[in-house]
C-alpha cells in the first residue's frame, strides 16, 4: 500500500514551560485524511504537544517551542511565518465546549469566516449551513440560528464549536479531549462525527480514553513523560504493540 501523503508533521519538537520540558524531541507525521489519536497517562505532554501544532503553546506563560512543525512542507515556526495565519489553517476544538456567549449560533459559526475577508451574506449563509451539516447539527438548529447558543445541550454546543472550527475550511483539525466533558450519548455522536470529518480534514485527537482511541482512529501515538514512545496503525498498537510501556498502558496496567 502506498504511503498516504503526510499533511502535518513534527520534527524534533520540544515544548517547555520556562526550563521545564513537557514535550521532548517528538518526530511524528499525520497522513492526510486520517485520524490520529494521541494517548498517554495524565501529564504525559499530549495536550501541550497538540497546542504546539497550532502555535498556541507559545501564548502560555513561559511557553517555549523548539524544533519544527511542517504543514505541507512549510515550517510553521519559521521566523517569517505569521502565527495568526497558521491558526487559520489548523483549527482546534477544546475540552470544554466554549461557544461565544454574546453571539448567536449563526454568528458563532461565521466567526472564523470574517477574519478571512469579506463574504457576501449569501456566501456566509452557505458556509454556515455547510459547516453545520458537516457537524451533524444543522437539523437541530436550523430553526433557531439567531438564538443564543447557551440554550443548547453540552453535546450540541461541542458540535457547534466543531462547526465553528471547520467553517473556515482549515487543513487540519486538532481535537483536545473533545468528549471528556460530555455524557455518553453526546460522546458517541461526536465520535461518529470524527469519522465523517476525516473525509474533509486531517484529524488529530488527544484522548485519555483508550477505547475511544481504538474506536475512532486510524493511527495512534503513545506518549509517556513527554516522549513519543510508539506510533503505529491503531489496530496494531492495541493488539500487538512493539514497546513494553505501550503494552502496559493499553492493557490498563497503569494509567
Amino acid at each position, binding site marked *: 500500500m502506498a504511503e498516504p501523503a503526510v499533511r502535518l508533521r513534527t520534527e524534533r519538537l520540544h515544548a517547555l514551560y520556562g526550563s521545564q520540558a513537557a514535550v521532548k524531541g517528538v518526530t511524528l507525521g499525520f497522513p492526510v485524511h486520517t485520524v490520529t489519536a494521541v494517548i498517554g497517562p495524565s501529564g504525559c505532554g499530549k495536550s501541550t504537544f497538540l497546542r504546539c501544532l497550532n502555535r498556541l503553546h*507559545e501564548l502560555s506563560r513561559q511557553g*517555549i*517551542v*523548539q524544533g519544527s512543525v511542517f504543514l505541507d512542507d512549510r515550517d510553521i*515556526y519559521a*521566523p*517569517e511565518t505569521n502565527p495568526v495565519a497558521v491558526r487559520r489553517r489548523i483549527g482546534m476544538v477544546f475540552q470544554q465546549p466554549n461557544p461565544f456567549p454574546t453571539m448567536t449560533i449563526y454568528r458563532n459559526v461565521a466567526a472564523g469566516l470574517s477574519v478571512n475577508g469579506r463574504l457576501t451574506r449569501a456566501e456566509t449563509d452557505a458556509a454556515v449551513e455547510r459547516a453545520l451539516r458537516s457537524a451533524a447539527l444543522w437539523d437541530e438548529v436550523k430553526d433557531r440560528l439567531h438564538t443564543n447558543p447557551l440554550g443548547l445541550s453540552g453535546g450540541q454546543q461541542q458540535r457547534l464549536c466543531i462547526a465553528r472550527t471547520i467553517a473556515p475550511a482549515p487543513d487540519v483539525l486538532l481535537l483536545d479531549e473533545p468528549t471528556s466533558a460530555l455524557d455518553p450519548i453526546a460522546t458517541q455522536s461526536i465520535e461518529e462525527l470524527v469519522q465523517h470529518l476525516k473525509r474533509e480534514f486531517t484529524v488529530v485527537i488527544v484522548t485519555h480514553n483508550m477505547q475511544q482511541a481504538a474506536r475512532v482512529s486510524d493511527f495512534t501515538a503513545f506518549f509517556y513523560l513527554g516522549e513519543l514512545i510508539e506510533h503505529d496503525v491503531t489496530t496494531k498498537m492495541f493488539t500487538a504493540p512493539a514497546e513494553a510501556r505501550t503494552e502496559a498502558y493499553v492493557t490498563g496496567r497503569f494509567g
Partner: protein
Amino acid sequence: MVDAPGRPSPRLRAVGWGDAAFRVILTGFAATIPLLFVALVARLTVSAWPTIRAFGVRFLTTSTWDPVANVYGAAPMIFGTLFSSLIALLLAVPLAIGVAIFLTEFAPRPLRGPVGTLVELLAAIPSVVYGLWGIFVLIPLLRTYVVPPLGTLLGWTPFFSGTFYGNSMLAAGIILAVMILPYISSVSREVLAAVPSSQREAALALGATRWEAVWSAVLPYARSGVVGAVILGLGRALGETMAVVMVVGNRHDLSVSLLEPGTTMAAVIANEFNEAAGLQRAALFEVGLVLFGVTVAVNALARILVWRVARESAIGSRAI
C-alpha cells in the same frame, strides 16, 4: 505573510500593525493614570511653593491664618481633619463591623441581600445632600436632644466644654461617621465572607457558641482585612468636603471641644479658594498638597492590607 520575530517566542508578537497599535492605544489610556498622579503632585507642589518657601515647617505647626497680614499656618485645619476623622472612626467602626458581622454570620439568608444593599445605599447619597441634612435635621436634633445631656454629664471635660451653636466638630464627626460606615462595612463584609467556613465550623465543633466562633475563629483570620477596611474609611473621612464645610463652622480655631466649631483641610479649600489670591491661594494649594499626601499614604496602606486578605478585586472603589 508578515514578520514575526524568531523562536522561541514566548508571546505572540504583533501581527502587522493591528496588535501593536491596539496595545499602544490601550497603554496610552492606562498611562493617563500615573500621569494624572504625577501631574497632581507636581502641580500642587509648584503652586504651593511660595508658602512652602515662606513658612517651611511652621506652616504645619502654627495657627495664624491671616490673609491681611499674609501669614498662614495650617495647624487648625490639620488638627480639624484628624480630629473629625477620629470622631467619625470611633462612631463608625463598631457599627460598621457589627453590621458586617451581622450580615455575614447572623442574618437570615433572605435578609442579607436587601439589608446589605440598603447599607451600601448610604454611600450613594451625595456629600452635599448629607450636608443639607446635617444643617437642617442633625444640628437641630443635636441642639435639642443630645448636647444638653452631654453638656451636663460631660461638660467638665475639655471635650464637651464651651457653648454649642450648632456648627461644630461633633456634627461634622457624626455626619462623617454615617458617610464612611458603608465603606468600612462593605469591605469588611467581603473580607469576612472570604474566611473559609471550615474555620467557623472547627470552632463550633469544639463547642464554641456562635458568637465565640466569630470572635475567636473568623475575626482573627480576617483581621488585617478589617483593619484595611477601617483605614479605607479613614481615608474617605480625611477627604470629605461638602458635608463637612456645611456643618463644621469654618472657624480657624484649634479646640478639643466637640461642641465648638472648627475647620478641616478640605473645608478650608472649599470655602476660601475662589476668593483667594496670591499668597493665600498658594497657602491653600499647600493645604491641598498636605491633604493629598496624607490621603495617598492612608489609601496606600489600606489597599495593601485589603489586597493581602481579600480576593483580587476592585473592592472599595465601588460606590454602590
